[in-house]
């Protein structure tokens, strides 16, 4: 589980959960959650 900021938006990337193309899931989170985990 990786926390990342992209252009002012915050996401968790889940390597263990994939989309229909097999790519890791990018889930938006709050800035507060991002800052608490990075």
């Amino acid at each position, binding site marked *: 589980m990786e926390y990342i900021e*992209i252009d002012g*938006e915050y*996401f968790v990337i889940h390597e263990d959960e994939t*989309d229909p193309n097999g*790519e890791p*899931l990018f889930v938006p989170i709050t800035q507060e959650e991002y800052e608490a985990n990075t």
Partner: protein
Amino acid sequence: MSLIYNRRTTGLFENGAMQKGDDTNFSGFGSTRTVSGDYLSNGRSLYMNNVNARGSGFIGAQYIPVDTSKVYQLAYSVKTITQSYNSRNGSGHLGYVCYDENKSFIDLRSLRHYGFTTLTRAASPGDTTIYVADASGWSTSTSSHQRIFQLFPTGHSLYSAANYYTQFKTGNNGYPSNGLTDLGGGEWSITLNSGLPDWGYTDANGEYPIGTNVGNGRAGGTYNYALGAPVYPQTWTTYSATCTGTGRSSGAQFRYMTKFIRFMNLRNYNYRTENAGNAALYVIDNLFFGEIPSTSDTLPTSFLQSDRFR
């Protein structure tokens, strides 16, 4: 105000209010629940009863046809039944997933948005250096999922610059973060990490000709989290949004070239790391996705939470 039913059932979800008496189209989500007060219509609700659901995604089976030029309302009604071991309510992202006319998932990586430019020299499959008019808007991020090379071919009915959509793209890490060079005179080079794939749609010379549109694909929010990521109260609560038009969207607006959508929920996502006991359990009912006359004509909560879904 008139309600456009679209079908004989309320809205376009098939079995969105458990009209069939089972979890058809939502198999795998959990079960159904028939306790009085825990359903809205048809004596049954969709029951997320998996005590180990901590953030896992669920996508409904039904592909719902969409005309993105029209206005739709999306609404899900939710209620926490049992709190988690540490008194958390149910929670998680609610929304939908976009698919094109071939029922292929539409990823943000496939959409025209960043670094849109043209080839200044013809490119052939296998080439590792590509010449474009302007790569100043291309990502130099260290994250591989921001560095994807897109090509919008000439002559393809679906993948085109005009449609803002292509599946002709490299994978993540299509070019290195130091692979962009301003050559001056209105030309840049892009060094690919692998040879340009052969997607077809080259010209008679087996090339993508000068002027072919290319762009920088980038990952972002995977699905359309149209209804946000709420914590579900222990009383019935309805989340609603209007959906119309297209863009590079992970919200209520449809993605470019969307022709179908499917239901989506990330189950108990907000408390996914709290795993010392059972996760929260919740019900969903009266799933609604239907055309409305305008964004000012949304159906009221009094209807969306009623027992009148058929």
